[in-house]
């Protein structure tokens, strides 16, 4: 049994900081209920400090495994922690004013930080039960976040649909975990790998199927995506933005670790399953998004489609494509974070009806340009961020040398074309429609505008980051 040393605390420092700041926000909020600036400032500061700690760990090349090999810190995990913490930071900025008006800002911000905490733990777990518990730590607060806005009737409804389906999915995931634990005699991925090396026993296969189904639910892959549009439409905008990025990226990371480290020999079993999931998810997401008039719901279906794109990289996790596929997941997660957070925050700046974007270029040109950037990035037009994510996935698929991965990549290309009408429908409204006659004050606060501008710049100049990111991803693909 390993000793707990100072190194353990260094390894856990980002999580400890996130936990402390979430508790601090809650406590300070209780004693200063009116001071939104204080609580939101603390939450933002907490996520920045956590970010700094993660960057330091990455910079000094800290690596190791802790708690009897159940918890690993490697570049792969740290990279995803950066994505989670950054999106938590922007979410706190965007949520501050809205949360203040509900009167429950401390609770809202503390819940956001605990989702981030769960996601950060999740990417480091190398123990199946650890994965389950941290997924739940990320999911249970997110139920509360979705149902948070009691003034809108959609919000508790979305929350209830999310929680009912989410709990069924959790028990399916847990059943899969327990069956794999039973077959392997251990929940540690290294030991699971030896069991999955030979021919699979029926129980092991059932466990794998149940595990993948549970994960498919958490990343809203078809046919387990039904909760996504309702939950995101009901949720407060900042919560929808955060949930569509941070926990999802972390869940993909955990799935990647389980498949690559826990069952690398069973690749011929799970890679085709991933390809089928990917193709179905892309088509369903995009076809349903085409029909939406509500921007929030459209973005929810768009996030389903983007999950499909990432799953295409999972289908390519074999042969010569493995390293590139891991890189593709890493780069896509970063690219998706900047463009999707921004696109969701636009709803808080403009409105959730597609018509409210009419003539935005005339009335608020800078905001309109940001919207155009985010939409172009989500389609995958160069030089915006989404393009690079898709290029990496295509490269991985081509190198993988498997028919299923080729099909998934072909479906990705077809779907990118399919998604053009609904993304550019909004862009057309922004530039070519007459503005609605309205006396309303322009919505949004300085903090949201700041986040949107920063994210738009990051989306546009993603090519500049791609060098360091790819370098980082190159190291990261060597999972510890």
């Amino acid at each position, binding site marked *: 049994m390993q000793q707990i040393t100072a190194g353990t605390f260094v390894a856990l420092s980002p999580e400890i900081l996130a936990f402390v700041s979430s508790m601090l926000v809650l406590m300070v909020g209780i004693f200063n209920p009116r001071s939104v600036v204080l609580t939101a400032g603390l939450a933002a500061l907490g996520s920045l400090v956590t970010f700094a700690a993660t960057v330091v760990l990455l910079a000094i090349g800290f690596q190791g495994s802790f708690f009897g090999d159940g918890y690993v810190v490697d570049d792969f995990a740290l990279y995803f922690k950066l994505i989670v913490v950054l999106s938590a930071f922007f979410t706190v900025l965007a949520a501050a004013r809205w949360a203040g008006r509900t009167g429950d800002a401390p609770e809202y911000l503390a819940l956001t930080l605990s989702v981030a905490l769960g996601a950060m733990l999740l990417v480091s777990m190398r123990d199946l039960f650890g994965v389950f518990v941290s997924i739940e730590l990320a999911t249970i607060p997110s139920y509360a976040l979705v149902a948070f806005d009691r003034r809108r009737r959609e919000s508790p409804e979305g929350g209830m649909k999310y929680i009912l389906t989410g709990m*069924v999915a959790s028990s399916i995931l847990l059943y899969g975990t327990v069956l794999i634990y039973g077959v392997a005699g251990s929940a540690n991925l290294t030991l699971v790998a030896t069991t999955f090396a030979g021919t699979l026993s029926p129980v092991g296969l059932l466990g794998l199927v149940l595990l993948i189904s549970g994960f498919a639910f958490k990343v809203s892959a078809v046919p387990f995506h039904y909760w996504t549009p309702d939950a995101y439409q009901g949720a407060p905008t900042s919560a929808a933005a955060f949930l569509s990025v941070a926990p999802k990226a972390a869940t993909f990371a955990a799935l990647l670790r389980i498949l690559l480290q826990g069952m690398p020999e069973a690749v011929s079993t799970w890679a085709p399953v991933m390809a089928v999931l990917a193709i179905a998810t892309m088509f369903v997401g995009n076809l349903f998004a085409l029909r*939406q008039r509500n921007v929030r719901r459209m973005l929810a279906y768009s996030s389903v489609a983007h999950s499909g794109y990432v799953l295409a990289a999972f289908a390519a996790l074999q042969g010569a494509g493995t390293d590139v596929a891991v890189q593709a997941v890493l780069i896509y997660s970063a690219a998706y974070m900047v463009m999707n957070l921004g696109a969701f925050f636009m709803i808080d700046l403009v409105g959730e009806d597609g018509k409210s974007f009419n003539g935005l270029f005339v009335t608020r040109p800078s905001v309109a340009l940001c919207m155009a950037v985010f939409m172009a990035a989500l389609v995958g037009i160069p030089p915006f961020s989404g393009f690079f994510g898709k290029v990496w996935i295509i490269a991985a698929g081509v190198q993988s040398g498997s028919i299923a991965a080729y099909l998934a990549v072909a479906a990705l290309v077809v779907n990118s074309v399919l998604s053009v009408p609904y993304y550019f429908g909004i862009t057309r409204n922004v530039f070519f429609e007459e503005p609605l006659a309205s006396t309303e004050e322009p919505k949004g606060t300085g903090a949201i505008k700041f986040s949107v501008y920063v994210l738009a710049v990051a989306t546009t100049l993603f090519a500049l980051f791609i060098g360091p990111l790819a370098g980082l991803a190159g190291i990261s693909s060597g999972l510890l």
Partner: protein
Amino acid sequence: MLQQFLDTLNATIPLEGYLVVGAIMFAIGAWGALIRRNAVVVFMCIELMLNAVNLSLVAFADYLPNAGGAGAGYAVLVIAVAAAEIAVGLAVVLAVYRTRKTVNVDDINLMKG
């Protein structure tokens, strides 16, 4: 004859027995969660599913040679997680009930498509 019957009663129950009971409980819970319309009853069915998994878990933990009894610790974690889920779930159901005076999942359908 009688002695043989008594011997059978005293023999240890094989691992498969627990697993089959667990699987049947899980299936009943899943079926209930799909067909029942009252949100609170759905929660009860989900609890049944989680407890079925827990039964398999402790059975594995007891029978596996290398597990070292760690499964029982995991089972406690699962119980804690289930309690937390139910707490949040009932709070959300209460919030829905306040605005609509119903917890029937078929009537709660503001959002579609």
